[in-house]
């Protein structure tokens, strides 16, 4: 039997957990990429291009971008919910945030698989 409670205190739990898991993914990516970049710097164009042509780098960067989008959505929504009281304005800002995140993701895919 489906027994979904549509009100209550637990609906933020999924977002809360997602924000923390995406944070860990991004932290791991940051440390690995920072080490690679600092280790191999300075780059010329060919080396830079080669780094982002690697399969693992493309997939990891896409995973980072997806994590960033989800993480940023939860964070931005928290900010709008805390400070913006008029419903219409808050909805508009939340929709704008989703569009912005979608643009970032699309742009990232375009950059990585050109």
């Amino acid at each position, binding site marked *: 039997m489906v027994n979904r409670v549509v009100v209550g205190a637990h609906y933020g739990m999924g977002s809360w957990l997602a924000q923390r898991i995406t944070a860990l993914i991004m*932290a791991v990516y940051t440390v690995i990429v920072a080490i690679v970049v600092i280790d191999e710097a300075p780059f010329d164009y060919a080396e830079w291009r080669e780094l982002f042509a690697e399969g693992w780098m493309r997939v990891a960067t896409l995973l980072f971008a997806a994590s960033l989008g989800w993480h940023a959505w939860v964070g931005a929504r928290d900010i709008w919910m805390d400070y913006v009281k008029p419903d219409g304005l808050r909805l508009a800002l939340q929709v704008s945030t989703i569009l912005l995140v979608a643009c970032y993701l699309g742009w990232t895919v375009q950059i990585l698989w050109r």
Partner: protein
Amino acid sequence: MANAALKRRRPKYLSLTALLFEIRLPLPGWVSILHRISGALLVFPLTAWLLYLLDQSLVSEEGFNHIKDHYLQMPVAKAGLLVFIWAFCHHFCAGIRFLLLDINKGIELPAARASAVLVLGVSLALTAYFGYRIW
């Protein structure tokens, strides 16, 4: 305990002057609000700007050289990078502190204060280090 002079100023309401001049945030409070401010800055506009830089640097050799030798040599672009580096380092360090607090590590007041000082210090030190390297 509380003397009469202190008592007379109660209750205290939130206002811009109260926020700016009267309410003293404890250091963990500063870490928290700066985590929020740096997060907001990272979502917009810094992510858009970094995607632009990545895009230009990967699209062609001319784009790469333009970004490296001209665009990022402008003082205003370096200042922007410095803001990005601070925002990222602070958000990163404060975020790790919050993750540890979530699993009940360092929640006693002395430990929480010490880790707040550490977060502010380490992110400023990292900003100084990377700032030195890009300048």
